[in-house]
């Protein structure tokens, strides 16, 4: 049953990615997934050029990227999004140059960057779930704004995102990371995680069946369904929340994003609370 594996695979990412997406959104590092995926793919190409197993080379380059990203303080005056974008462009260009030197490389690198939800079987889904579970364990617990803390966060992030993009493609991963979190975003802060999760799960189920029923490409159809549901939810939240000027409280928001809404004492508070 290909339909069933597609459904389960999109459900797995619908459960794992929106919560992670909220972390990514609140840190304003949306480009991080593209950057990490590209660094991994470039590492794979490098491995082929140096005739070492591609997976190890990909892991090594991703680890280096994680270390470099972790060196960057979360309160850095640098626009983090621009740094991530720069890493992405750099890695993509290195990959392209390597590719042009490798006569056989192209197909394999394309396969690595653009996995497809149609290509994933049961063992692939189990692998994806294990990686995502490990990644969430590392990335979700609140971390200190120290090198070690940031390392844990980015390592967790790459453990989820790189295998997910390899397994089901960049389109679905990017959409599930950003759209649900963005949809429930309110007054400059993250909304409740359960809302993001619910709409993502609905989109996965509805999108997969719509694609099957209408004979359409599943990845793109699921993303379109997700976008539609996210826009509707976002609009409803915007209008029901319009008169509300109170800061987002712990009830509204996931508890981990709590310290972000009180900007005035965040410096000392976060330092003491994140350990």
């Amino acid at each position, binding site marked *: *049953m*290909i*339909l069933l*594996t*597609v459904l389960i695979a999109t459900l797995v990412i619908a459960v794992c990615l929106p919560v992670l997406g909220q972390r990514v959104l609140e840190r304003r590092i949306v480009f991080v997934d593209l950057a990490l995926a590209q660094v991994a793919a470039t590492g794979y190409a490098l491995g082929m050029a140096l005739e070492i197993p591609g997976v190890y080379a990909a892991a090594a380059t991703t680890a280096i990227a994680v270390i470099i990203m972790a060196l960057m303080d979360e309160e850095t005056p640098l626009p983090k999004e621009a740094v991530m974008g720069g890493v992405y462009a750099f890695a993509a260009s290195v990959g*392209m140059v390597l590719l*042009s030197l490798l*006569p*056989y*490389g*192209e*197909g394999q690198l*394309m*396969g690595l960057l*653009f*996995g*497809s939800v*149609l*290509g*994933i*079987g049961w063992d692939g889904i189990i692998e994806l779930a294990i990686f995502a579970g490990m990644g969430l364990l590392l990335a979700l617990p609140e971390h200190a704004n120290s090198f070690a803390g940031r390392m844990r966060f980015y390592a967790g992030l790459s453990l989820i995102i790189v295998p997910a993009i390899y397994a089901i493609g960049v389109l679905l991963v990017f959409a599930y990371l950003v759209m649900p979190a963005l949809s429930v975003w309110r007054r400059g802060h993250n909304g409740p995680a359960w809302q993001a999760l619910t709409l993502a799960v609905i989109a996965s189920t509805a999108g*997969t069946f719509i*694609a*099957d*029923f*209408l*004979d*359409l*490409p*599943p*990845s*793109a159809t699921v993303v379109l369904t997700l976008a539609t549901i996210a826009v509707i939810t976002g609009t409803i939240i915007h209008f029901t929340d319009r008169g509300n000027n109170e800061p987002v409280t712990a009830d509204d928001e996931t508890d981990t994003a709590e310290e972000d809404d009180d900007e005035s004492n965040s410096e000392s508070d976060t330092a003491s609370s994140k350990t």
Partner: protein
Amino acid sequence: MPRVMKIIRRTSSLYAAALLLVLSLFFASHAIARPVVVATVPALGQIAQAIGGVDIDVKIITSIGHDPNVFSPRPGHARMLINADLIFAAGFGLESSWLPSLIKLSGNQKILPGSDGYLSGGDAIEAIGVPLGMSSHQMSQWSPDKNPHWWLDPEMGIKVAKTLSVRLSEVDTVNAQRYKLRFREFEQAINEALPRWRDYMKIHTGAVITYHNTYVYFMDSMQIELAGFIEPRSGIEPSTRYMESLLTVIKERNVKLIWVEPYNNRAIAKRLADEAGIKMMVLPDAVEGIGTQGYVGMFDKMVERIARWSQ
């Protein structure tokens, strides 16, 4: 003063003589220079080598394993075309996304499309349309583009090689007889091997599913039945319903093998093969080797691989 003038006159005549010498050397070398033929894909380069032999210089733009549909040329490729006398392309849209701009960039007027220096498959053969044995549903999914992968049919290879030999004779009239002779040898080598390939394929395959329409010419030539494509429209992900219908086709027509091009997504093909309990294999569309030996070697390798995987 007159003495100075005399010296100037003498040196200038010396310069003129030297210039004349250089120019005559240049033209002489140009006259004996071998025609440069630039082929777009490796197999076409092998056909050109087979016909031109030592009388031409063959350069090949893409390498083995590159998808010629989405090739991104480098400046060196434009330089490759500057001195070309003939460009040898597959045509039928295969190189349309990059070759015209590359030719323009090279500034070489001799090889503009439509001129005598531009030879493509369309000058010798008709591209094939929808292959036999497809259901109406599969036909509706068939890409309307003409299929450019004619070099995977050895008989098409012969036809185009003949046109190439005629074109080379026009470019380089002195060696016309030699091109003709080499074409005969090329034709003979293929005609000798063809019955062997066909016999092998008759024994070893059955209906086959392929990723794209790349191997349609090969299947036509080897009389292999086509059961369907995984991705009928290039670059567009198939639907789950279509994948399930392929599973039915596999069962009904007893398909045992899925072929994938070296540059296409293996994950989807592997998933389908695993689900149906059949095998997936990567089939080359070019192999290492020079001239006839390389071109014939490609079919040898394809046939050998298919036979091995079909067991």
